[in-house]
């Protein structure tokens, strides 16, 4: 494990990466006139979670245990034009810098923590309180196209250079990539999101229904927002699919669900044959902790050539 303040020096193609400046808007929570959805036992519920600005839930906080459904921490961001929105969702990467550009919170900075058919942005709670639906944000999108030159079998996506530098790990003996993970997730847990492209939304995990039946549990009730997790038997290189002997690394970007087949969800960061990784169990492997280790939020600057060196 790297000492505090260390960044892992993994060779990657930084000189090839571009930053695109993307506009987004804090999107409202959406409902329909019927309101209720149905939990695993057939009970109807009506709970907050998706859209708007969700206060009080940040990286490092429990992902479960909220009276919410698909809890999206912080700002939920979209673009009103469908094609521009897909670009925003596909190109935004975890760790990218986000700046609020309108409203009383203008100037506040945050960080992309995942995608969930919204780009999800965490920021300081005080700053977040000034932001609401309709406010404009700018995402400095960099990361898609990143390659780990010493680990050609591993596909990296949705991961900013800054996050990659902060991730615990490095090249282990035998040329494997060390990845520190807060939890290991069995393939039985993979819920909604399977079959979709892995640059969009996330993979809901079942088996994390805190307080519901024991026969629903897969031991995932302790997940936190921002946890780096390993998904067994998942190949997310070209979409999210089951493939024995493959491993996918993700970051938990959404929390509690009551809707059955859904749950706290990792956004995909890496995918490769299992033998390309050496997983290290490390409860501290969480976005919040990692970013503190590297001296606080050190997001990707806008720089020619895409360097993320401060």
């Amino acid at each position, binding site marked *: 494990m790297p000492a505090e303040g260390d960044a892992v020096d993994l060779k990657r193609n930084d000189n090839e990466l571009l930053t695109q400046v993307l506009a987004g808007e804090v999107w409202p929570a959406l409902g329909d006139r019927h309101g209720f959805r*149905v939990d*695993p*036992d*057939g009970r109807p519920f009506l709970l907050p979670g998706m859209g708007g600005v969700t206060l009080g839930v940040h990286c490092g906080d429990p992902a479960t245990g909220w009276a919410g459904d698909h809890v999206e921490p912080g700002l939920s961001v979209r673009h009103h034009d469908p094609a521009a929105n897909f670009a925003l969702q596909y190109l935004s990467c975890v760790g990218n810098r986000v700046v609020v550009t309108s409203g009383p919170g203008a100037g506040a900075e945050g960080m992309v923590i995942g995608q969930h058919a919204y780009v999800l942005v965490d920021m300081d709670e005080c700053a977040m309180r000034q932001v609401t639906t309709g406010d404009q944000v700018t995402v400095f999108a960099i990361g898609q196209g990143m390659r780990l030159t010493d680990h050609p079998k591993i596909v990296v996506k949705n991961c900013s250079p800054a996050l990659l530098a902060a991730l615990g790990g490095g090249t282990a003996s035998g040329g494997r990539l060390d990845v520190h993970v807060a939890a290991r997730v*069995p*393939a*039985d*847990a*993979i*819920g*909604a*999101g*399977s*079959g*979709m492209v892995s640059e969009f939304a996330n993979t*809901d995990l*079942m*088996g994390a229904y805190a307080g519901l*039946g024991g*026969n*629903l549990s*897969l031991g995932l009730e302790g997940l936190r927002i921002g946890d780096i997790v390993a998904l067994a*038997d998942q*190949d*997310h*290189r*070209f*979409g*999210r*699919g*089951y*493939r*024995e002997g493959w491993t996918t690394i993700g970051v938990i970007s959404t929390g509690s669900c009551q*809707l*059955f*087949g*859904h749950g706290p969800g990792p956004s995909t960061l890496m995918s490769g044959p299992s033998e390309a990784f050496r997983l290290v169990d490390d409860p501290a492997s969480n976005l919040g902790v990692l970013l503190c280790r590297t001296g606080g939020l050190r997001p990707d600057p806008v720089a020619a050539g895409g360097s993320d060196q401060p």
Partner: protein
Amino acid sequence: MNTNPRDGTGDRLVSVNLTAFVEQASVGSDPFRIDGDGAPYVPIGDGGIVIGLRLGDGVFDYAADHAAPGACLVHDDPAAGYALSAQACIGNPVEVRTGAAAGELGAIAGKRGEEGRVIAVFRQEVLHELRPGDQVAVRSRGQGAPSLVEDVTVCNVEPDLVERLPIGAGPVTLAVNVRTVVPSRLVGNGIGRPTPMWDLDLQIDRATASRWHAEQLRLGDLVAIDDLDARYNAGYRRGWRSIGVVVHGASPQPGHGPGVTVILSGPSGRIDVEADGAGHVGLDEEALLEVARARW
């Protein structure tokens, strides 16, 4: 626990005539989809009218993506499309109302997810006369049907069809003959979605079929999925079992594969299964059309 979502209502089922339209297969501006190994391919047979594919054909036999036997039915109005997919049940009759095939009868054979699509089987000579846009009437019946045994939810199937399927009802358990039994972790697209409106794609391809005793998997087969509770949304529940009908063929897309429309879901102690990898016969075209004709 309320194990049958329709308990508390009466057992008499209503039939509803729904209007639907034969779908035109559609693609995006990019002709390619990407397979699990990253190779682009042009999807063939995903929706619309598919000729030459029938119940009983192998799911891995065609160079196709999600190909369904017959014609997919849709409705332009999204809410009407959702109602179509939620209420149409396997075995319901379909009558063509416009076009060269007007007056011909077919039957609902399954459903597809996402936009509210259902699959209708017609005789091949009728399919040759069908054209995208033709209007059909679906006489839906089946949702809300009473349980065959306690604790087991029945859905998505015309009650008169059940006796034509390899399903036997004892006093406390069902006995079901299936092609194979697979674990819930093979369920890809469709997991977490409402069972009355989506099918469940099994992440099995030709290369992995033997691992799951699915080499002979055919359209119309019954399949058991263990540790899956599909009474409402489909999701993982230890000790539960769901039975479905294979309604469309394999797919190169990761997270996709042969699609199963669930018809039974309950505790596994209530549903005994016999896996018959070589001899299983599930939903048969003759039986399906006969039941539909009798219901029209």
